[in-house]
């Protein structure tokens, strides 16, 4: 008796924190096939960038994602800096790097909690999120906000650190450094947790490369790819020492281990930065107009390689901005991992890539073959959105 039926997961489902739609063909508790539909959370941000100045864009792009806001900001800022031909001063570079690592800690702790929640381990979730408050408080102290720090700008960072803050940061980091190994041990020794994550969501090394997985997902499959090593930015490579973390487990447990060890590596990076902070300015003056040119900027966000493509046309507004978020790179491997898995493993396998749908979502305009290509400008897109919701009775 082998009867398959289709189980929809999404666009609204408790396992999903943001809307997307999976269709699973299931045979009892086994998944035979998985299919994915994107586009429920498209906000037209790339198009929006073209209608705004660079200074406005940096804050708009920060809001592409709530968790990796700093990564998006850094990525855009360093791309535009390259086009402008300016370099941030050393102190600015160090603080930029510090923000990236602080954000990585907060994101990885958040992910650990979400992973715990997806397998029903709510106590684990509560503890990791409680400890995440430590790093959230540090971020708030440095930048003035818990999310959307707004620290990066063209030519450096917007706020300097003072002595008191460095001391508080070091204390906070030391506290987290003492706490993180506990979660790593728990993930590897608590029997029910191990039962749910060890050997689940296997992604062999060759498949990870073939399906272009990114970030901790690929590093947990033994691929030592990290933008911080392969295309150094923000002081990595020459100024700031850094060790890459990989694991050969290829399963969800390996992804937990990689993320926990990455946190340990980040604590070392941050301690180095705070102890060796160079003196001087944190930013250089940046022009308002950007000379013609195009560039690709890469950052190792918490979830993997983040790419921004920027094309400038000599005005104060970009000609084209394109965001390739790491989650998009991880979807093919997620579908691969889901095929043949148990129904109960859907949430944890999906969560294991740390998906961020608002970063990722795409919109496709299917143009009429006879009407030629249809180009949407910002205003049309906005009007379309307002109309779309008005038709459904939602007041804009």
């Amino acid at each position, binding site marked *: 008796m082998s009867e398959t039926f289709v189980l929809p997961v999404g666009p609204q489902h408790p396992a999903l924190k943001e809307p997307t739609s999976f269709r699973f063909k299931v045979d009892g508790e086994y998944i035979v096939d998985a299919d994915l539909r994107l586009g429920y959370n498209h906000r037209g941000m790339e198009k929006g960038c073209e209608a705004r*100045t660079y200074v406005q*864009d940096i804050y708009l792009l920060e809001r592409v994602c709530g968790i990796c806001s700093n990564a998006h900001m850094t990525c855009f800022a360093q791309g535009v800096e390259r086009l402008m031909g300016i370099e941030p001063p050393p102190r600015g570079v160090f603080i930029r790097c510090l923000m990236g690592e602080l954000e990585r800690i907060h994101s990885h702790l958040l992910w650990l909690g979400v992973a715990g929640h997806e397998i029903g381990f709510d106590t684990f979730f509560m503890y990791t999120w409680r400890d995440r408050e430590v790093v959230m408080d540090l971020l708030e102290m440095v930048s*003035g906000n818990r999310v959307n720090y707004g620290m990066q700008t063209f030519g450096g960072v917007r706020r300097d650190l003072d002595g008191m803050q460095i001391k508080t940061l070091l204390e906070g980091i030391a506290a987290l450094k003492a706490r993180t190994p506990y979660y790593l041990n728990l993930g590897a020794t608590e*029997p029910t947790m191990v039962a749910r994550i060890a050997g689940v969501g296997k992604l062999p090394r060759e498949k990870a490369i073939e399906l272009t997985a990114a970030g901790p997902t690929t590093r947990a499959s033994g691929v030592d790819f990290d933008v911080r090593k392969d295309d150094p930015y923000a002081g990595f490579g020459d100024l700031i020492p850094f060790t890459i973390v990989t694991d050969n487990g290829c399963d969800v447990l390996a992804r937990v281990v990689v993320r926990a060890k990455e946190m340990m590596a980040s604590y070392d990076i941050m301690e180095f930065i705070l102890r060796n902070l160079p003196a001087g300015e944190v930013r250089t003056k940046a022009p308002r107009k950007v000379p013609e040119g195009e560039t690709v900027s890469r950052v190792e966000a918490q979830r993997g390689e983040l790419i921004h493509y920027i094309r400038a046309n000599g005005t104060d507004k970009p000609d084209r901005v394109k965001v390739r978020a790491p989650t998009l790179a991880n979807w093919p491997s997620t579908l691969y991992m889901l095929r043949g898995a148990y129904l109960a493993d859907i949430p944890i396998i999906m969560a294991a890539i740390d998906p961020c749908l608002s970063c990722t979502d795409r919109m496709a305009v299917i143009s009429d073959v006879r009407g030629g290509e249809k180009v949407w400008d910002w205003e049309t897109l906005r009007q379309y959105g307002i109309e779309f919701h008005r038709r459904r009775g939602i007041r804009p």
Partner: protein
Amino acid sequence: MSLRLGAMLPEVFRHLFKRPATVLYPFEKNTVPARLRGRPVMDPDKCIGCRMCERDCPAEAIEVTQESETRTDDGKVKRRFSMVVYVDRCAHCGQCEEICPAKPDKAIKLNEFFEEAAFDRGALKIVYK
């Protein structure tokens, strides 16, 4: 590593006797850090009317308008500006404060107020004259 049954038991029983970590907001409030980016507040006496904040605001939440133009006795033109801040749109990025060129003190500053929820959108349109 070997498996340990109930690996978390000692930890949870220890927390049974600890004070909970939850803060009872809004009855208890954490202290706000000095650098918090709260609501933008404008001082019309200091504004020079350059409109840099209006131009740079990513959320288009600021409107600057000229209120009056008076000529002082020594022949200098003195203009006075008013500002409307739509706090419901404000993204609290602080770019307005950063870009403000007024010397010696900036004409627009972000204060420490963060509880922006309101029942009426109109209450979040704040006029500085």
